[in-house]
């Protein structure tokens, strides 16, 4: 069961990236998000991927990072296969190769590749951000810039509830397996879901009572146990991030030659290799996950 749980949570550490305050990191992640949705230039997207991987490597989060990527990467990479046979691109399409029943289009490869790069760069930055930031620090920072306490609280509780429910689900699953329940199929849905949901509802009821009894919703300024201090370094990083995002965005908007979709050409062999690799990675992933599910 442990393997099925996505380990998207903070990896404690002491690296340079860990030490940066949450807000500058959030700003960088959002910057990358905006840029990756504004451009289809493979080089810019590629550069962001390289930068993201570099940040991941200096923050010492590889093992958790790779675990998450092991699941997300095959899902993202399938974009190359799907796009190359049915490009999300205005016609006309230029066919460059034939792979069994599928015709591979020039624009499809371009579109697939950029779509993949887009999701990949965003995911890398988001992961580095989440894995190097303590959730409480993030909420303290968000509150400082004026996020209402109630919204903040809802976010925190939701984030906390996910691992709790995952653990609960694992317990219920082992309890039902001990009663001979087959681990898969429709017959497993009720026995494993009912106790989890009933437990969740009970938990929320209890929580509302304990919140009331601890004066939740009372007015007045709230203080926090954790305190995030923004140093000069953090402001510098923030300004650099802001400038870099703005400049890149301006460049993307002004320079029309950055759209390489009609100028960049892929050789048929390279395209076929790309498409097959993407499909293979995805199929392998599906086979491995299905066999894992059956085994439990």
């Amino acid at each position, binding site marked *: 069961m*442990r393997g099925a749980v996505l380990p998207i949570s903070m990896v404690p550490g002491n690296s340079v990236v860990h030490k940066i305050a949450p807000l500058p990191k959030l700003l960088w992640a959002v910057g990358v998000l905006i840029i990756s949705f504004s451009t289809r230039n493979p080089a810019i997207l590629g550069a962001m991927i390289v930068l993201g991987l570099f940040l991941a490597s200096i923050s010492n989060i590889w093992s958790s990072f790779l675990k998450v990527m092991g699941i997300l990467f095959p899902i993202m990479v399938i974009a190359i296969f799907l796009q190359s046979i049915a490009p999300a691109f205005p016609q006309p399409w230029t066919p460059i190769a034939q792979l069994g029943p599928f015709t591979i289009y020039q624009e499809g490869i371009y579109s697939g590749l950029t779509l993949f790069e887009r999701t990949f760069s965003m995911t890398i930055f988001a992961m580095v951000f989440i894995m190097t930031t303590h959730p409480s620090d993030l909420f303290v920072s968000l509150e400082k810039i004026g996020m209402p306490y109630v919204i903040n609280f809802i976010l925190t509780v939701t984030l906390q509830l996910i691992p709790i429910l995952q653990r*609960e689900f694992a*317990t*219920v699953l*082992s*309890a*039902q*397996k*001990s*009663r*001979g*329940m*087959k*681990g898969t199929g429709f017959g497993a849905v*009720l*026995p494993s*879901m*009912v*106790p989890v949901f*009933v*437990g969740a509802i*009970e938990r929320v009821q209890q929580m509302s009572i304990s919140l009331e009894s601890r004066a939740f919703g009372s007015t007045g300024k709230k203080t926090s146990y954790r305190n995030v201090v923004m140093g000069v370094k953090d402001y510098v990083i923030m300004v650099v991030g802001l400038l870099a995002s703005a400049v890149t965005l301006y460049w993307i908007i002004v320079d029309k030659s950055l759209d390489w979709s009609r100028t960049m050409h892929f050789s048929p062999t390279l395209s076929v290799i790309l498409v097959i690799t993407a499909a293979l990675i995805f199929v392998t992933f599906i086979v491995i996950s299905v066999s894992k599910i059956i085994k439990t």
Partner: protein
Amino acid sequence: MEEVLITCDNLSHVYSGGVVAVKEVNLKIKRGELIGVIGQNGSGKTTLVKHFNGLLKPTYGKVIIKGEETTNKRVQELSRSVGYVFQNPNHQLFAKTVTAELEFGPRNLGLSEEEVHERVEKAIEFFNLDTYRNQHPYRISFPLRKLVGMASIYTMRPDVFILDEPTTGQDNITTRIVYQLIRRLRDEGSTVICVAHDMILLAEVVERMIVMRDSVLIADTDPKTVFSDRKLMSSTHLYPPQITELSHRLKDKNFINTYALSIDEMQKVTDQQLQVKRSK
């Protein structure tokens, strides 16, 4: 003569984070034994018993259940031989009625309809649940829910019952009922393993105690020996039943000459002592 049901051979378990939860445990569990597993929270007792029905697999060493190694066995297969009653019945119960709940286990074993029906009736009788048979498991009181949890395993007729904290959160009456049921399960030829902090259960019901401390099995003997060993008890930060502690102190002052685990036993000891004094 006695059939060995569970064998742990140099069993160690290391969790994925590198935490050693159980270290080099060797033990044999036979048919008809009444075993208590004790230790502080985090001492590895739950990890140990989770190996007995395959929920956890040994990192090193072997666990053999009825002659077969657990490593390549699924929990579902092992549930035929070893039943695990979880501490919180809410983790187990999902059906609309108590009867349906009890049918779940034997159905999973692939038994015929008559056999399932027969087992459910037997369980309802054994656990005295007749009044509640058509009620929703979530609507009956917590102690009864716990009994339903036990009954839902009972219908699977395992050779070994693992009961995780069978008496926690229950009032005195149901606690006594649970004690009786545990004895009756044994009388029917099952092995019962209780993971418990309930010292009275351990002193009065259990016949063999397995003591865990810091992932290591430090004692495997009868309750009397464990409870009379004050050093062992204090090293695990567990307190014996009050009556045992009292008998300890009386013995220290030479009022009595042996330990007692229950009030009845204490009475016997003091009666004897009085007789000795009178005859002098």
